[in-house]
């Protein structure tokens, strides 16, 4: 990814406004793909249904001292 950006940045230096627009577009796409990938990971593994619900009552049960104070 870095390599692509370096190349594009170099083109931007040489090519002017068009290349800078291309760089912005490329960065935008990369950020979007990255956000989508993170959202997918979150949805698949870390969203609420995947998280064990643990609170004081749950810990009380786990340690066999009762659920509520």
């Amino acid at each position, binding site marked *: 990814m870095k390599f692509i950006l*370096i190349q594009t940045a170099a083109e931007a230096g040489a090519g002017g406004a068009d290349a800078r627009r291309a760089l912005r577009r490329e960065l935008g796409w990369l950020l979007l793909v990255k956000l989508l990938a993170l959202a997918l990971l979150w949805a698949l593994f870390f969203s609420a249904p995947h998280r064990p619900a*643990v609170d004081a009552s749950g810990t009380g049960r*786990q340690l*066999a001292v009762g*659920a509520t104070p």
Partner: protein
Amino acid sequence: MIDLDVVQLSRLQFALTALYHFLFVPLTLGLSMILVIMESVYVMTGREIWQRMTKFWGLLFGINFAMGVATGITMEFQFGTNWAYYSHYVGDIFGAPLALEGLMAFFLESTFVGLFFFGWDRLSKIGHLIVTILVAIGSSFSALWILIANGWMQNPTGTLFNYQTMRMELSSFTDVLFNPVAQAKFVHTVAAGYVVGSVFVLAVSAWYLLHGRNVPVAKRSMAVAASFGLACSLSVVVLGDESGYLASENQKMKVAAIEAEWHTEKPPAAFTVFGFPDVQARMTHAELKLPWLLGLIATRSIDQPVLGIFDLVERARARIASGILAHTALKALRANAADADAKSQFEAHQRDLGYGLLLLRFVDNPADATPEQIELAAWSTVPNVPVLFWCFRVMVGLGLFFIVLFAGAIYLSTRHRFEQSHWFLRIALFSLPLPWIAAELGWVVAEYGRQPWAIDSVLPTFLGVSTRPASNVIASLTGFIVFYSALAVVEIYLMRRMIRLGPDRLGYWPASSSV
């Protein structure tokens, strides 16, 4: 009752990911500091070869950093997914250093790693050196916060238990921050990382000298690695000794298990150099002992005893009895928070609550525990003696070997005899995996020796695990093994490729000058 399959699988997953992550960490720590040394010489002397050396070793540092940095994040995720009760119970304390580590690693370390690679033509010499120094400081600081968190697990200080929220709460951040165990672990671990970096540079440079390539770069690199490595390997021994001394105060059972000291000896205790610990017979066969040494190391005295496993189990039995009273009182308090008698009993015995909780592995209600179950719980406080005994000895043996290796390298360097000493170059080359083995064994001793506790004397490991089906953990464990194995293959491939290309073929050093 707790599903022990889930406990074992979760432990295995955390152990594997932690050991895998620690393949990258020490090299990052070590190489970052070696880069600082090389670039400092470049800034001070203006000699271009030192800049090229910094760039070449920086490239290998970059591959290791890129491949390894993210492998630590999955460990932090596991606290939420696999260790939910642990996270609830101690998250208030444990979370703070982990968050700070994240800030250090991602905001400081990663930012300056970027500047290191892309700043050569954009920053002044001094400016770039400052960036390299900040990379090294960032690496060490992120290690510091992790080791503060880990040190607290070994020696929980600066915290109080709140029976209403059922969690440990921070009472003194400075106590957590300046926990002596954490400080000793930090300097010991970072120094071990420097040794890993030094052996890496020494071994790769030896390979170039054996092949007659990049000779000026390799000789200078070996000289840096030898001197830095010798200083660090001596430090590792001294700082490891400090860690051991602190463990003998806070984790007496760990020390007794490492030494396979079943019975308390008359002080000063002897150090067992060799032997075969027998867990069934609770004795060590074919012991070879050095008189006085353990007493001196563990107590820094000749009249203090080093308690043996049997005596420590006896102590654990007494603490379990007290822990049962704490558990019963806590149960009463959970039913009626205004129960003054229960509160008073809990306050008197809460120090031993963790020992009472050990019984939950054998019985649903600790107050109903039979003498046999109490006996089982007391003996469950003994970690795996043979594993600790051997891991510690191999680690120490390797540590002593590194001192000899670096001393030999310094001798040859001062005599300008590297190129003639092929036997030494081969030893240096084949030593490449050894510092990783020593570092991994060090973690095995530290963490396996902490068992059966997640938080020493506070929370047994089996109670910290999430209530998930074993199949969930098997699926994620399989995923980790496949993904991390692929990452390891890519890392080794890239490293081998760059090392084989070398500074000459990568354009960092003219090929004509390399022979």
